[in-house]
């Protein structure tokens, strides 16, 4: 088990390193930001001077090396705009992002797992078909579009919920629904197929032959087996929710990391972008790691070894 943990932690480091490298070069290749910060008619010397000051005039590999050395020490530099510490700015936004992602995840699980179980139990009935159909649609609807529709209906027309900002429960409702839609659709279909798979197993027949009721077959004997793959998916989706909240945060002006990243990209505020990517990559990798450990925990065949 220790071996397994060390191996997976090493993977976490590699993933984070690769993510930072790729983003660093992509962002630099798109040009340097100096012109954005100076008036359009700034003289050449002033631009050069500014570039030198920020270190953008040096060869790319030198900049990359310096960036990595600092990054390892947790220093991503200062915001080019405000001069505040980049990592600090990102960390300030983390709670809001976590709040949204966790709320969406919990809502998704509470809605999707029972629906998926029911769908499997009533497979090929009208209920099941409608459910599967809706979940395909739900997975195909783009986040931003769904968010805008919700704003249109509940904020603009009915005027019962706020369309943007954060701070209260009512502010969370629309973004959480928007963010959860995709996960709900995924979880419903996944739970359904995991349950169907398990319900066809020999051991379910064994329990049935021993006199088990339909409800205990489903809720006890089958569900616990299905939870193994479901938990893995749920944990993976938390990563997607945290990273993928960018669009939702922008649509609802939710004060999280996603919106900060979006703004910083538009502003070419590189240090913030890189600090944000760093945090998201770490979260993503760590969540994967936790998913694996959880998986091992619920599956006695792995746990015991």
């Amino acid at each position, binding site marked *: 088990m220790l071996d397994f943990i060390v191996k997976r932690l090493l993977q976490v480091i590699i993933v984070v390193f690769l993510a930072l490298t790729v983003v660093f070069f992509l962002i630099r290749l798109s040009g340097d930001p100096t012109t954005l910060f100076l008036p359009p008619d700034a003289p050449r010397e002033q631009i050069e001077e500014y570039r030198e000051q920020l270190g953008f005039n040096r060869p790319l590999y030198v900049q990359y090396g310096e960036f990595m050395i600092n990054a390892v020490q947790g220093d991503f530099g200062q915001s080019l705009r405000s001069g505040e510490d980049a990592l600090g700015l990102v960390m300030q936004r983390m709670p809001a992002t976590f709040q949204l992602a966790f709320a969406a995840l919990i809502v998704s699980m509470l809605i999707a797992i029972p629906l998926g179980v029911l769908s499997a139990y009533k497979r090929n009935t009208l209920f099941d078909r409608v459910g599967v159909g809706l979940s395909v649609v739900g997975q195909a609807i783009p986040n931003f579009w769904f968010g805008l529709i919700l704003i249109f209906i509940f904020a603009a027309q009915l005027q019962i919920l706020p369309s943007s900002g954060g701070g209260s429960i009512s502010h969370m409702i629309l973004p959480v629904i928007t963010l959860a839609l995709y996960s709900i659709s995924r979880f419903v279909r996944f739970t359904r197929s995991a349950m169907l798979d398990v319900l066809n*197993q020999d051991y379910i027949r*064994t329990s049935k032959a*021993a*006199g088990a009721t339909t409800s205990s077959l489903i809720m006890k004997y089958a569900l616990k087996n299905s939870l193994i793959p479901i938990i893995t998916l749920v944990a993976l989706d938390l990563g997607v929710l945290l990273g993928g909240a960018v669009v939702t945060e922008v649509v609802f002006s939710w004060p999280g990391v996603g919106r900060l990243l979006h703004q910083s990209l538009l502003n070419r505020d590189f240090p913030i972008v890189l600090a944000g990517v760093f945090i998201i990559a770490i979260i993503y990798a760590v969540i994967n790691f936790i998913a694996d450990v959880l998986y091992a925990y*619920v599956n006695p*065949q792995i746990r015991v070894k």
Partner: protein
Amino acid sequence: MTDVLLEIKNLGIEFKTGEGTVQPIRGVDFFLKKGETLGVVGESGSGKSVTSLTVLGLLPEKTSKIVSGSIHFEDEEITHYSDRQYRKLRGNDISMIFQEPMTSLNPVFTIGEQLSEPLKRHKKMSKKQREKAIVDVLKQVGIPRAEQIIDEYPHQLSGGMRQRVMISLALLCEPKLLICDEPTTALDVTIQAQILKLMKQVKQDKDMSMLFITHDLGVVAEMCDRVVVMYAGEIVEVAEINELFDNPLHPYTKGLLASLPTNNDRKSKLYSIKGQVPRPNEIGEGCAFANRCPFAFDKCYAKTPPAFSEGDHLSKCWLQQPEGR
């Protein structure tokens, strides 16, 4: 009639499949007396499992249908039972042991949790009593360390041990009928012999009746009092065990016996019946075995033979027609 425990009459089962309906069980008739071990033999695909699953109402609800016939258990017709009524039988009056010990136990529940299911359903017992009952049964079927095993998971046990666990699951409520669907096929030979011996012994101890399904006539000779030979969803021959081995009447049974390896002529080539069991959708008019039968004549292809009987010995073959061909 009181000494008959299970009687199946003219049973027909239909499955809905992607390519339409098939009828893998057609007109199956047999009975099982109290205290008897009845063997059901036949090649793969002959319908042994489907027949036995039907008795416990375990066929898939949506895709299968009993199209004809009846099943009487203790003189009560059970094919029209509701799920609730079937549940009273399952694991209580009738238990079943399945072919695959490796996949027949739930991987995420301990042995103890799985074994308490029939007791919870059918017996009023405290947790302590249940645990004691389970440990007792596990010991009866020769499981060492029974007290520890109840807290272990199936993957920690060998195939032979798992099959012993399956047997104890079946025995917990002391059923009147034990259905064994090829309980030893998946095990290696020495374990197989141990398990067979065990089953013979528990059957005697508990005074049960047994429906023993296998494709191995050697196992049948070991275990059974009477034998039903199935071919392609029909019964082709029924006889006492000695009668069947000494005087087989149906060419299919003869073929099965001829394909048994014997000790005295080790060098001669093993006989095998040519061809394969027809799939349910390939069966038309006439005797289902005709295309593989060395003795087949015109009538065999034209008309399905009825059952001809000589005392208790029954066979469905035109060769047995008293007035000849």
